[in-house]
């Protein structure tokens, strides 16, 4: 039995990460503004000993998102949500997404440090810089900054935020509320901040930082500053290459490879039997609205989460290199189409077979709907019985393609309960996953030390 343990986060999109998740009969369709429901799902994840619940964010809205990403259209502000979830739980880490491009460091340091105190050391900040071009219009900006500017800004933002977290001596407040705080007098390229923060040093010392991204700047920021990284890996070789790159970069920054947990996203569709899991998967996809074949209007994309194109046969035709326009959506696919498909098409068919156990021949056939949904990059997931899903997780973990997963709930709360009830016990029995929390803070779950205070006059040794 390996000592290495899996880490799980729950990517909490209230309406589900599947675009039609909210239409499932048992889905809670009023979820995004129902704080008691958010609390309930968080408690399910805490019962399954998850490392964290993840609150995503966007800084703009558009009703057009309702068919592609209803969870991203509107939601409760994450800091306010997180504080309420902290009040309703005791151990699970709580991750808040905040974009430094549209925030001040003092406010972020203030909000995150407060959340860490209120939650007893369970706060975390997911630092995002991109994916929000349309946010600029809500912040009196002419344009969304380019990557270089956003990362130059983010690098200094993190530096000054850490200084603000350190602007109080460890036990200064308890001894005397006045003497232990100090100015940081930061004068940088973008920020001039005197300090100190109006909050004493957070229980975790520094808040756990999360980051995601594939660009060189993003990998550097993640390897230097992040404790958890979300990764997108379509397969083990790609995920492993990313994993190895980040861990190598971390070492270059003087960190240990174990200081960073790399967690790809994964959507488990699990049920007691494989057939039942496939049935749920098909039901979810049956609700996806098929777009018209009119290609004049560009499909609107919302960052990396918006899918890969329209949900129609024109997009399938472009993707697989075989003209299938005019076929019936629920018609079974002619085996000749697979034979003639290009490399991307071959991959698409294999992916569909993996998820649905259907093929172009035999008793269970692939339909054009399957192709449409897969080509649009929607309805992904690991579909299977509990053992199959646990095997998938173990396979990736043992291959060192990841340190765990950020679990995407296709719809709420059933997919979360199913994973907790059916898959987690198998992983615990295999010795791959904790049966209980080892401590009260998010850093404890990750096995990370509390950092020493970089500004303190007499350096306090890290515990």
């Amino acid at each position: 039995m390996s000592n290495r343990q899996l880490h799980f986060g729950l990517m909490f999109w209230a309406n589900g990460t599947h675009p039609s998740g909210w239409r499932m009969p048992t889905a809670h369709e009023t979820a995004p503004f129902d704080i008691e429901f958010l609390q309930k799902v968080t408690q399910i994840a805490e019962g399954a000993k998850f490392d964290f619940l993840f609150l995503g964010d966007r800084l703009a809205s558009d009703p057009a998102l309702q068919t592609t990403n209803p969870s991203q259209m509107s939601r409760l502000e994450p800091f306010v949500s997180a504080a309420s979830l902290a009040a309703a739980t005791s151990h699970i880490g709580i991750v808040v997404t905040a974009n430094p491009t549209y925030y001040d460091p003092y406010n972020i340091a203030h909000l995150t440090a407060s959340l860490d105190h209120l939650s007893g050391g369970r706060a975390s900040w997911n630092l995002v810089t991109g994916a929000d071009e349309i946010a600029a219009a809500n912040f009196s900006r002419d344009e969304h900054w380019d990557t270089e500017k956003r990362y130059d800004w983010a690098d200094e933002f993190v530096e000054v935020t850490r200084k603000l977290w350190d602007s109080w001596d460890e036990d200064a407040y308890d001894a005397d509320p006045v003497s232990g705080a100090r100015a940081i007098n930061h004068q940088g390229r973008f920020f001039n901040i005197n300090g100190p923060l109006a909050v004493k040093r957070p229980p975790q010392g520094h808040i756990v930082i999360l980051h995601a991204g594939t660009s060189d700047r993003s990998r550097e920021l993640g390897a230097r500053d992040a404790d958890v990284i979300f990764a997108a890996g379509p397969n083990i070789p790609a995920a492993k290459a990313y994993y190895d790159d980040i861990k190598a970069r971390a070492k270059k920054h003087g960190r240990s490879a174990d200081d960073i947990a790399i967690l790809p996203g994964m959507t488990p569709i699990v049920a007691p039997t494989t057939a039942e899991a496939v049935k749920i998967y098909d039901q979810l996809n049956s609700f996806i609205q098929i777009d018209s074949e009119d290609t004049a209007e560009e499909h609107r994309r919302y960052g990396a989460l918006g899918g890969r194109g329209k949900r129609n046969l024109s997009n399938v035709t472009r993707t697989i290199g075989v003209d299938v326009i005019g076929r019936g959506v629920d018609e079974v696919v002619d085996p000749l189409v697979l034979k003639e498909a290009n490399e991307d098409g071959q991959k698409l068919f294999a992916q569909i077979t993996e998820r649905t156990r259907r093929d172009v021949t035999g008793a269970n056939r692939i339909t054009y709907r399957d192709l449409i949904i897969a080509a649009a990059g929607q309805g992904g997931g690991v579909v299977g019985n509990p053992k199959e899903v646990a095997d998938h997780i173990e396979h990736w973990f043992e291959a060192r393609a990841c340190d765990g997963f950020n679990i995407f709930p296709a719809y709420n709360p059933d997919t979360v309960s199913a994973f907790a009830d059916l898959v987690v016990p198998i992983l615990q029995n295999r010795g791959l996953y904790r049966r209980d929390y080892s401590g009260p803070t998010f850093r404890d779950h990750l096995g990370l030390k509390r950092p020493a205070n970089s500004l303190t006059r007499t350096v306090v040794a890290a515990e």
Partner: protein
Amino acid sequence: MTTKPLHFGFTYTPHGAHPGAWRHPDSRHDPFDPAQITAQTQAVEAAGFTFIRFQDQLAPEARAAAHAPEALARTEAFTTASFLATRTKRLGFVVTGNTSYFEPFNLARLTASLDHVTHGRAGWELTSGASYPAARNYSQTEATPEVHYARAAEVLDILRKLWDSWEDDAFIRNKATGEYVDGDRIHPIHHEGERFRIKGPLNVARPPQGQVVVAHEITSDLSYAIAAQADLVFLGSHAPAEIRNRADAMREAVKAAGRAADSVRLFADVIPVLAATPEAAKALLADLNARAGQSADGYVIAGDAKQIADQIEALAETGGVNGINIRSPLLPTQLEAFVELVVPELKARGLWAEPKDGATLRDHLGLDRPANRLTTRADLKAAV
């Protein structure tokens, strides 16, 4: 005689409102201990206060120098209120948010979300950089009070529009048809002002109260114009005669803004130093003053329960206010004593308005839920 019952708010100050509080042996309050602030807030709710008020600290050293170390540090107001709202049922939460140091879009999301999480118990106390200097923590140079207030007025206008950018019936959520929202009930605001350009819409549903309760404290002559657009006005912590002057000026300002004089609720703050006997109360106040080397900043009254109740009644009557904010000088003991001894006395005199379960902060304060100013529907459109 005052005939109407009064609303009571609790203005939270870590350790207590007296600058000597944290040096006093009875001070056992740790503003960073979630269990302690939870217990204290639940006690405030159980006593029947209408709301608790949390204030931000964006320039701790400046405040500490001007007032007292108690002002130095505390948890941030929005997260604190949301945390505590989850552990209470009917208490209102009035939270400061600074218009000079927050982006309006972020402030709109925080306030609207707090109203959702509290099921309509949220109030936003508008503060501006004119209240105290924090520019040096925000990479800004200090501006004049006039500039801060002009910015505040524009931010208030933006927030009111963003809160209304989703109509109450914008959500369809029809599983059979797949329609989640009605795009015609969601409105960009296209704000183009002197300082801000905000397209909208907000990405938060309309707050349960329609518009979050807006509060503002009178800190200078410049405060009146913006307070005239608020629902709740804090006149400060002053002797009854000064409160009266401010209340009169405020009512004039409200009328000048084209609103009915009684559409705004006026509150005065008081620091009650309470003991079993008048002599013991005076001794406690002298002790706190000695420990701080200064007196408390505000209207301090000292006495036994009856004297405190008398002076609160006199303050309300002379001042002509709708409510009183209590600032306990020393936590937790002075809050506990107030709840045990003074609250029953005020209730016996019919002076205490008791909030009800399931009601919003607007309901508690007798304020209507506003119509949506951005709706295109004739039947819902606000009369202008």
